[in-house]
């Protein structure tokens, strides 16, 4: 019996741990300023401190930690992508995810469930086979299972023929997992703060100081905020749905559209669904969280707005499809609904690396696939900010690829149609 725990339980005063100590005033200058205190920004700060020993870092967050898309996704982690670039990148992320609870000394509830992407048409079967072969080539557990076998693996689904989209088979990805998403942000943030990184919440970036436009867009030297201006050696923007707005302050345009992505959870149910189930044709994905809620999401909104409102017609559409897969949940109530602002790229791959402004780096275009990439983004961004060199894993995602017509077509591996 750990007596410390017993003693703690009997005391009347339970101090709240100060995970993000208030760093006080902004300093005049930081080696590195990270705009955006979401998972990606905090992971970058964490790996700058842990891997590179760089702690003269400020993370500037307009709202509060965990209040943005890090806490608004559906927490699915997988690496069964379509392009070799995507597969290698996301697989490194999974490798890092598996150690995070130990690294943080904090349970992120990483739970391997097996991820099933259903195929309802012959052409979907063909794409699944293609993805399985690309995945296997890179050593990733991923295979096509046909209807009979699938029925034994995920017996909860409705396999009848008299539905709009009968299930023909699925791409099965054993390492597919879910994790507690806000714990990921807190773990990275707390780890960075403990090592000396300044995390400034309620601090909005209002502009940049950019000097010398020698036939180029110039070089960033400072960041203007709602609490004053700081000089900065290198700057990273990692702001998801606001990427276009922040890039405009730095003087360049991006191939991004900001579109809301809605999600919801049901009331808690007894555990009945171990697998993560996704259907592109039905535009749904569903998993059961460790506290029993069905976490459900679907396609992005049909047009862009800068809002996180929920709509009834989106939910009606999602539920109609959900009931085709799981007819017995028709009496289940919804518990919560929300939305996040996603930054969608034309090729469904992210934008990472250098920008037209010197010393100004970007981590954007995370659309509906950002959470699963949090650790690898942090690791690679940190390396880039520390050394000024763009690593091989993220080289294919450069903003320059649009200029060179060298896109990374990942739409076939997006979990649902958009």
């Amino acid at each position, binding site marked *: 019996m750990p007596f410390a725990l017993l003693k703690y339980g009997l005391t009347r005063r339970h101090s709240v741990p100060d995970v993000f100590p208030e760093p006080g005033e902004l300093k005049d200058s930081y080696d590195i300023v990270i705009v955006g205190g979401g998972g990606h920004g905090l992971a970058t700060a964490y790996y700058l401190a842990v891997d590179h020993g760089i702690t003269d870092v400020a993370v500037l967050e307009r709202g509060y930690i965990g209040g943005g898309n890090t806490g608004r996704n559906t927490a699915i982690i997988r690496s069964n992508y379509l392009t070799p670039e995507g597969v290698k990148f996301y697989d490194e992320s999974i490798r890092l995810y598996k150690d995070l609870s130990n690294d943080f000394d904090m349970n992120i509830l990483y739970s391997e469930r097996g991820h099933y992407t259903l195929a309802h048409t012959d052409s979907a079967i063909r794409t699944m086979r293609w993805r399985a072969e690309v995945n296997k080539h890179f050593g990733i557990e991923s295979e096509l299972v046909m209807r009979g076998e699938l029925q034994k693996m995920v017996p909860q689904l409705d396999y009848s023929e008299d539905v709009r989209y009968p299930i023909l088979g699925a791409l099965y990805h054993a390492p597919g997992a879910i994790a507690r998403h806000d714990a990921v942000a807190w773990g990275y943030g707390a780890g960075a703060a403990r090592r000396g990184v300044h995390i400034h919440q309620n601090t909005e970036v209002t502009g940049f100081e950019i000097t010398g436009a020698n036939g180029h867009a110039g070089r960033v030297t400072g960041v203007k905020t709602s609490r004053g201006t700081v000089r900065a050696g290198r700057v990273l923007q990692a702001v998801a749905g606001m990427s276009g707005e922040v890039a405009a302050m730095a003087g360049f345009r991006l*191939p991004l559209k900001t579109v809301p992505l809605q999600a919801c959870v049901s009331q808690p149910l007894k555990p009945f669904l171990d697998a993560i189930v996704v259907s592109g044709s039905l535009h749904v994905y569903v998993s059961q969280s460790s506290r029993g809620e069905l976490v459900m999401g679907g396609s992005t909104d049909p047009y862009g707005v800068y809002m996180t409102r929920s709509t009834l*017609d989106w939910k009606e559409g999602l539920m109609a499809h959900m009931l085709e897969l799981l007819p017995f949940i028709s009496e289940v109530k919804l518990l919560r609904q929300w939305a996040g602002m996603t930054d969608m790229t034309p090729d469904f791959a992210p934008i990472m690396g250098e920008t037209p402004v010197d010393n100004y780096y970007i981590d954007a275009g995370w659309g509906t696939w950002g959470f699963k990439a949090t650790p690898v983004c942090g690791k690679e961004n940190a390396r880039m900010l520390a050394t000024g060199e763009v690593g091989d894993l993220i080289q294919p995602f450069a903003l320059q690829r649009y200029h060179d017509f060298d896109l990374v077509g990942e739409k076939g591996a997006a979990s649902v149609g958009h």
Partner: protein
Amino acid sequence: MKIMPCPLNGPRNISEFSCGGEVEHLPPPDCDHATWIDYVYLENNTRGIVREWWYHTPTAYWFVAERDTRTDEILRTWPAGEFLAEFGERR
């Protein structure tokens, strides 16, 4: 349910429409590479009032709508011909 006031069909459910993107000038066919890339890929992604092409799918009808992307309000719509006559050169 969100309603789009269609210039041809009157107020209709927005699920009958698709958004065709912001109204912009098509660059001349002999434009330079950077201009073409800008037109093909780069977005204003406006946070505020924006004019966009919209399409009513059942009647195959294109028109222009002005809306506020901060509030999801549709402010005004024009038949394409009227819009081009009014803003042809300075849209």
